[in-house]
């Protein structure tokens, strides 16, 4: 101690540097602009001691007490560091540099209490406070009215019955009421209408759409090639079912994140996982680029990022993705938190998984799987010691089995080897061989069997092309109507195909393409090497039709660009003679397996043998299940090649400096946002080693009773769809960049009521809201009006709109413009064409051209009269790259973005679409046919049309010109005009 004092006395000669007097002014002058209150470049600021001494992303710590030469800050300002020079545009004076040097060398003394700024408490924000209600009010209206009174405003009067019925129909079901329904419910109490609409299956269809917007559900991958996802729809049906069955919200969340582990043996527990995979996916970045490459890593990073954003954004309304490159600039989310969330999803990819459409089969399936696994485990446990005992002989046999075909001396059973092209000096020469099937047939599966020849010590796979394609056509010259058999196309035509040995190469058509043709052609574009030259050879080409059956190519006529025709070994006819080398090797393999098994069993005693036999019998006796259905979901992938998946072992996740894949920092384990765990007291418990337990832990963290974000988020979303604006206007962002609640007490009251009193029932929440006076107010900002279309306005506005131009305080309802789906469904409904069939694969209102490679979704080729496309819009096949033009122009959600609130635009292009799109034009005709059936005489017909479209009785000054127009231009044109009325698109 004494020595220390002595030294410090000794070095501070003339005067010692004082932080406040000497150093802080330098920082103020030169650094605060970028590293102060306004900006914190590189997460670094010099106006707060703790950050200055320890913070800064890339170079922390920037100040090393006592060591100016090693302190990055000093190196940057003194010019010692050649790469980084600070400040970027100016220079410090030599006196300033000297002062800083001395200050650091003297120990960088920074007294407490002199900071001119404070680290912001990021938890000090409304959404990070626990749910709390100060004044327990009786209902929604008491909160709304209190706020209005406080602002000096009055609530509007209640809307008339007809207006309310139309409003509630669109709100709860997304469809207009019929005139008959209006009459019926006008005579019944309002709550009867509410109950009936909530019980209608149309309710689930309407509200599922809001949910699918949020989770950015789509049925193609997006990105390049934009392939269809034919098994995405079971998730859409799950969401509809969940709303219709009023699934408790907690369970709804848990199923979507971890239904497989939290609700095993249920259909919903599996189909709900479509949530994880709902968003876009880079097919090329996964299927063509392996994880070992940087591009492959980036693609998988983006993939997990999408899952993390989708989960936390949807359920907790937070923007965690902002913490990818640095600490979240506004909210209490660290980079480590963000990557721990990525670790939650590190075990899964997007893939089709099995499920059964009913819980009984699901349970059987789960039980069987379990039994099978148990039996297999027991068998393995018994066999392992025997295998070891069998030693080298066992290993040798295994090796022979693996390479059974290749190792075999001569697998050619007969001298008829196959087809052999003429020899080419260059590898890039194109060669083809084709089979004439005799007639045009549907082609479902094609098998190419490789040759065997010892020539050049090649053996199996002799002459099998390195790059090739398989095509089907009715044109023997393959110049027109050529269909590519596309599934493995990327693996065989764009990239080199590894020599398969004697393993047959098999490819299917897409199944839904319906490829038909009389000729099947294999074209090699990169030939197989022989010795110093190149050839194309195949032993057998087999073609199978849609139903499993005979080889359609058997014995059929073969042509080719060229052929060596060296009978009997090499000739064209050998391609379809049913003789290929692998059939015998398969038998060999089976024989070897039997041999190996006998060898292993011979090592055991009788008890073991009996036990093993019994176990094997039990396993073989397990009953088979019917073929399962598939859902595209977030799940463990057991793939191969570039798109291998994890096979259950989660990928290792590192924090990435600046979000850069090339700069991995520390490894992280699965977790959630730690500061929120502390604030709300939320456990994050991973209760097993399998990846699914990570997801289960996150699901439980989100649904915890004390996670205030979750409960506030959902009630706000529901509120938003009933009023056009949430109590918090930024429904996807409850952080500091988002808005504050307009009625924070009401928000918390709703959240608590929903969580505790309504037990997470969304239907009860809807009822609570739509029964309120606030909801039932008129949408007019005026006091009242005289009746009649020509009625003049009364004495003006209800409230001074300068008080609340945005109607945040809800002195009246908001008039709503119909969203894209409601417009489309309403057009179909009033035209009498709406098909209410529920569920199942989506209808496609486009024609797919060129499905082989990059499908072209041709909407203009769709016939608007196709009845399959007259179902509700929720069942529309949603393409990501090329969205449906009509729906898009009507502002439907972009399935590449998580949409909490749709844009609302008006443009001439929208007007043109409403006037001229095939939908309106075709439906106007049906609308006219319908009213001509339902009413007689033009006047009655127009009257009926208006009643259907606007849900009211027309005024004479509307009727007269429309009848006149209909008489001159036809009823269809009048109906088309009615569909274009403002009143059709706006709901009071």
């Amino acid at each position: 101690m004494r020595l220390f004092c002595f030294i410090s006395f000794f070095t501070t000669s003339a005067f010692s540097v004082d932080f406040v007097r000497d150093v802080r002014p330098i920082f103020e002058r030169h650094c605060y602009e970028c590293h102060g209150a306004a900006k914190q470049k590189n997460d670094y600021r010099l106006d707060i001691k703790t950050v200055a001494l320890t913070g800064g992303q890339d170079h922390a710590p920037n100040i090393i007490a006592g060591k100016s030469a090693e302190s990055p800050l000093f190196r940057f300002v003194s010019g010692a560091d050649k790469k980084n020079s600070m400040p970027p545009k100016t220079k410090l004076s030599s006196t300033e540099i000297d002062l800083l040097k001395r200050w650091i060398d003297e120990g960088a003394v920074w007294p407490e209490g002199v900071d001119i700024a404070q680290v912001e408490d990021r938890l000090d924000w409304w959404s990070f406070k626990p749910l709390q209600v100060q004044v327990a009010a009786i209902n929604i209206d008491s909160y709304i009215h209190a706020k209005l009174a406080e602002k000096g405003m009055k609530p509007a009067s209640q809307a008339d019955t007809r207006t309310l019925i139309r409003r509630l129909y669109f709100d709860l079901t997304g469809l207009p009421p019929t005139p008959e329904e209006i009459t019926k419910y006008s005579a019944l109490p309002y709550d009867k209408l509410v109950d009936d609409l909530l019980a209608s299956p149309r309710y689930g269809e309407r509200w599922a759409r809001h949910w699918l917007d949020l989770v950015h559900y789509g049925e193609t991958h997006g990105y390049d090639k934009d392939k269809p996802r034919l098994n995405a729809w079971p998730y859409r049906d799950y969401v509809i079912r969940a709303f219709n069955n009023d699934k408790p919200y907690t369970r709804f969340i848990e199923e979507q994140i971890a239904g497989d582990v939290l609700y095993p043996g249920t259909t919903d527990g599996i189909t709900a996982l479509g949530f994880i995979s709902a968003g876009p996916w880079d097919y090329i970045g996964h299927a063509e680029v392996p994880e070992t490459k940087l591009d492959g890593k980036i693609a998988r990073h983006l993939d997990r990022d999408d899952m993390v954003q989708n989960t936390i954004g949807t359920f907790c309304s937070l923007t965690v993705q902002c913490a990818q490159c640095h600490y979240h600039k506004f909210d209490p989310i660290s980079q480590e938190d963000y990557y721990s969330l990525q670790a939650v999803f590190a075990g899964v990819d997007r893939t089709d998984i099995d499920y059964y459409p009913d819980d009984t089969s699901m349970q059987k399936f789960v039980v069987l799987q379990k039994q099978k696994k148990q039996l297999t485990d027991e068998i393995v446990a018994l066999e392992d010691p025997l295998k070891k005992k069998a030693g080298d002989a066992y290993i040798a046999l295994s090796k022979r089995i693996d390479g059974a075909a290749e190792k075999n001396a001569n697998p050619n059973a007969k001298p008829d080897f196959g087809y052999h092209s003429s020899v080419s000096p260059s590898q890039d020469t194109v060669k083809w061989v084709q089979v004439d099937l005799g007639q045009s047939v549907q082609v479902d599966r094609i098998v190419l069997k490789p040759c065997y020849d010892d020539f050049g010590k090649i053996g199996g796979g002799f002459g099998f092309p390195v790059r090739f394609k398989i095509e089907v056509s009715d044109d023997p010259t393959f110049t027109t109507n050529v269909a590519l058999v596309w599934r493995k196309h990327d693996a065989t035509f764009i990239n080199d195909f590894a020599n398969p040995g004697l393993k047959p190469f098999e490819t299917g058509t897409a199944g839904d393409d319906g490829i038909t043709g009389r000729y099947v052609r294999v074209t090699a574009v990169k030939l197989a090497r022989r010795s110093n030259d190149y050839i194309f050879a195949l032993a057998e080409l087999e073609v199978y039709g849609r139903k499993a059956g005979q080889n359609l190519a058997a014995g059929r006529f073969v042509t080719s660009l060229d052929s060596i025709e060296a009978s009997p070994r090499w000739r064209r006819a050998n391609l379809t003679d049913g003789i290929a080398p692998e059939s015998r090797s398969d038998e060999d393999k089976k024989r070897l397996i039997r041999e190996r098994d006998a060898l292993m069993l011979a090592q055991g005693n009788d008890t073991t043998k009996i036990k093993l036999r019994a176990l094997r019998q039990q396993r073989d006796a397990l009953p088979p299940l019917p073929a399962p259905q598939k859902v595209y979901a977030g799940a463990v992938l057991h793939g191969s090649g570039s798109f291998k998946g994890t096979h259950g072992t989660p990928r290792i996740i590192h924090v990435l400096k600046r979000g850069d894949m090339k700069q991995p920092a520390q490894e992280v384990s699965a977790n959630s946002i730690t500061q929120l765990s502390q604030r709300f007291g939320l456990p994050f418990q991973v209760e097993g080693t399998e990846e699914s337990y990570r997801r289960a832990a996150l699901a439980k963290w989100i649904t915890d009773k004390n996670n205030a974000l979750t409960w506030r988020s959902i009630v706000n979303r529901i509120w938003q769809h009933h009023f056009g604006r949430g109590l918090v206007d930024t429904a996807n962002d409850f952080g500091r960049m988002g808005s504050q609640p307009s009625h924070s007490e009401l928000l918390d009251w709703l959240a608590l009521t929903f969580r505790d009193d309504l037990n997470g029932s969304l239907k009860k929440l809807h009822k609570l809201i739509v029964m309120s006076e606030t909801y039932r107010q008129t949408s007019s900002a005026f006091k009242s009006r005289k009746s009649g279309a020509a009625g003049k306005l009364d004495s003006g506005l209800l409230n001074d709109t300068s008080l609340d131009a945005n109607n945040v305080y809800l002195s009246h309802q908001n008039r709503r413009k119909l969203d894209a789906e409601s417009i489309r469904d309403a057009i179909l409904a009033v035209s009498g064409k709406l098909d209410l069939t529920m569920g199942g694969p989506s209808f496609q209102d486009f024609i797919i051209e060129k499905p082989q490679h990059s499908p072209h979704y041709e909407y203009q080729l769709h016939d608007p009269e196709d009845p399959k496309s007259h179902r509700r819009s929720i069942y529309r096949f949603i393409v990501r790259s090329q969205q449906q033009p009509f729906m898009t122009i009507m502002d439907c959600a972009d399935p590449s973005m998580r949409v909490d609130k749709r844009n609302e635009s008006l443009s001439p292009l929208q007007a043109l679409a409403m006037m001229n799109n095939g939908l309106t034009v075709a439906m106007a005709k049906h609308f006219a046919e319908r009213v001509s059936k339902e009413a007689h005489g033009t006047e009655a017909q127009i009257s009926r049309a208006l009643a259907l479209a606007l849900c009211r009785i027309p005024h004479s000054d509307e009727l007269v010109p429309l009848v006149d127009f209909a008489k001159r231009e036809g009823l269809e044109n009048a109906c088309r005009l009615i569909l274009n009325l403002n009143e059709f698109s706006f709901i009071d």
Partner: protein
Amino acid sequence: MITRRQLLQTAGQGFGALAFASLEASEQQHRALTVTPKAKRVVQLFMGGAASHIDLFDFKPALIKHHGEAADFGEKVETFQNGLGPWKKPVWDFKPYGQSGKMLSEVVAPLGACVDDMAFVHNMVGKTGVHSQGTLLQATGFNLPGFPGMGCWVSYGLGTLGDNLPTFVVLPDHRGFASNGPKNWDSAFLPSQHAGTIIYPGAETPISDLFPHKSGRYIKASTDRIGFALLEELNRKHQHQREEDSRLDSRIKSYELAAKMQLAAPEALDISQESSAMKSLYGIQEHRKVWPSEINAAEEADYMGRKCLTARRLLERGVRFVQIWSGNDNGFPRRNWDSHEDVERDHGPLAWGMAKAVSALMIDLKQRGLLDDTLILWTTEFGRMPSTQGGKGRDHNPYVFTNWLSGGGIKGGVTSGESDLWGYKPLDRENPTTCYDIHATMMHLLGMDHEKLTVRHNGIDRRLTDVHGHIIKELIA
């Protein structure tokens, strides 16, 4: 009464609600408009599939000298398809053009006439070698979908120049979309009227829904004339009782504008009004119906020429942003710039056709005095490797590629940023140019501060340039 300004705020879409907006030409200036604009309009030329800088614009004598030798990059190189063959010299010879003496490949020789108006950036870098991500990055500034295209931001920031044509027009390759399709020009979180409107010049339906669908045989031209008037009358009655809601008025006006567009668009797309000299300047063979089945330069020039001539007619008539695509998806036979197999086969016809048509566009704009305030940007998702892939093709090169710009305040005849000896990476690896810099420069020339043109979406103030972008001063006249 709610004022228009309040209403704009009400819609909760910030400035985007100018929605109705662009209907009445902007009465309000965006706060990002802080710079004196030099350009009013933009033409973006996008070569889908990744055009080879080495074979077109970036002359590398070292490759000629070392052609066929084993490629030594001095470091481990990760390529998209694993193919790393020997160095490959440019497929075509280069010669100097113009006062600037800029070396151009003979396959783009027609551009020689314009070279003194062009500024080259040879040190562009991307993020990945995956087409989809690369294309999105150049087109929207982000390598994942869900962000507005460049033209959408320009439409959003500047609004329209006329009111009877769309503000942002996209002329796709007629054979199909490049990677990501419309995701490259979707409005994403901006209101839908800022999305690019697709036009197929010369097609049966060049603009969708401009006229009634073919199932509407009951509709006569006269019907709509009377119909529009009656629609307005009825809508006005409805609106009079709801005067506080100006959306209703805007919707009525949108139908007036729709009617105007029905008149203006067909006229704008009718290239038969152009002289035959003009058409042949653009490489258009108007009456030719039959083309060879193999890809060929004359046919490519004809396609590209029609798009470029249409672009000029649209620009003249008030369209703000035209995006022209060359090259479709990766179908077969190959009709894009992704020359893995054979550079000469694909790049030859595509490049010559592009050069013929684009040079005509520049000459034409210049003689009309429009090049001064029309910015032209030529881009692609990334470049191609200086080595072969074993055969006659080149693999992806996201590590360096070329952009060029012209007109609209761009200094002609200059080069900013060089690639290295081989055209493999930037010469100065520490200071490459990114799409953010190109986008920032474009915005600057249009009079906008790229850091200020922002829209808050899901908690983040989004902009075209993400959190990056420096204006490239050397490019500005």
